[in-house]
């Protein structure tokens, strides 16, 4: 497979697992990055941070920046098309019946089990990223400074309506401060 083909296949697979926001695609994205040797998990984490700071959906932003890192502007283009085109095609093909389908009893019932499964996927993504970034389970079992940052950020995110951009900027400054003292 050529580079374009493998990028296209990898990112079109991601579309299927995006439910309730872009984070559900992270475990699969991480697997794809590893199998192809495209990006390390810390590089992927950095890309997600940039995606969250920029305007727009996390999923499409991540596809564009990760694609760019893999193969420049063409990589970004192919990854973005692969991740978004299925949405357009589904709406063009079944746009008329979507409303009726959504009212169907079994369609609603599927989401009763699907949503909890997606939550599991996202929690797994969080655990996995914490481990891969050596926040937990690294050489010292727990990287104290990172763990504190992580917990404080989590509490702020669930308790307040503070925009994540401010948290990212504050964390960047703390990171710089910790490295110079």
């Amino acid at each position, binding site marked *: 497979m050529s580079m374009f083909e493998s990028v296209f296949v990898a990112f079109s697979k991601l579309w299927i697992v*995006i439910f*309730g*926001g*872009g*984070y559900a695609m*992270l475990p*699969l994205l991480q697997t794809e990055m590893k199998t192809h040797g495209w990006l390390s998990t810390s590089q992927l*984490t*950095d*890309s997600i*941070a940039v*995606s*969250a700071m*920029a*305007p*727009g*959906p996390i*999923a*499409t932003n991540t596809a*564009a*920046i990760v694609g*760019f890192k893999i193969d420049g502007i063409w990589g*970004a*283009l192919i990854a973005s098309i692969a991740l*978004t085109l299925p*949405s*357009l095609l*589904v*709406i063009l093909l079944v*746009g008329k019946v*979507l*409303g009726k389908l959504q009212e169907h009893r*079994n369609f*609603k*019932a599927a*989401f*009763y*089990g*699907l*949503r*909890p*499964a*997606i939550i*599991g996927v*996202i*929690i797994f993504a*969080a655990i996995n990223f*914490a481990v891969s*970034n050596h926040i937990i389970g690294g050489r010292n079992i727990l990287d104290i400074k*990172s763990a504190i940052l*992580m*917990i404080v*950020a*989590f509490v702020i995110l669930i308790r307040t309506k503070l925009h994540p*951009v401010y948290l*990212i900027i504050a*964390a960047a*400054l703390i*990171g710089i401060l910790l*490295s110079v003292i």
Partner: protein
Amino acid sequence: MEKKRINFKFILEIFFSFFKISPLSFGGGFAMIPIMEEEVVHKKKWVKKEQIVDIFAIIQSLPGAIAVNAASLVGYQVAGIVGAIAAFLGVILPTFAIMVIFGAMLITYQHNFYVQAALQGIRPVVVAMIASAAFKMSKVSLIDKTCLAITALSIVTLLYHKSLIFVVIVSGAILGIVLVNIRIKLNRPVSLVKASERK
């Protein structure tokens, strides 16, 4: 609402409407929903209030980025296939351009000492953001103990083997259908909303 004549000018207007709102939404695709509503319901009056509520309900049950799904469906309902394509391109192009610039900047400066230090601080926050997304979703979607069990089972399955993600998602949906139907047969139907949210 009178039917708008679908001409090139109208299609261009759809494109630029989404082109304009897309870079205004910070914090993921969900953030674009209220901005989109303001634009297409109140400003442009392309769709009615009830219609947009239906549209947002439908797109949440489709895979893919919410903002992209929403734009495409609004475009489709307003001006058919060409409208969908115009809205789709309008919503993805600006953020795509921004991300390419950010990507180039990240590659240029990633080995800089200060950038490295900043990223070291940012990574734990990214983990917190992922975890908080799950937390917020669980508050509305974990309706009962069965849901909680499905979530726990998914985590354990994925910890056992990461590649089982499609299995987890498909079995979640199948379990949902099976459980809801069994409960109906047993005359103890599942409420599909949380007890605290029932009116």
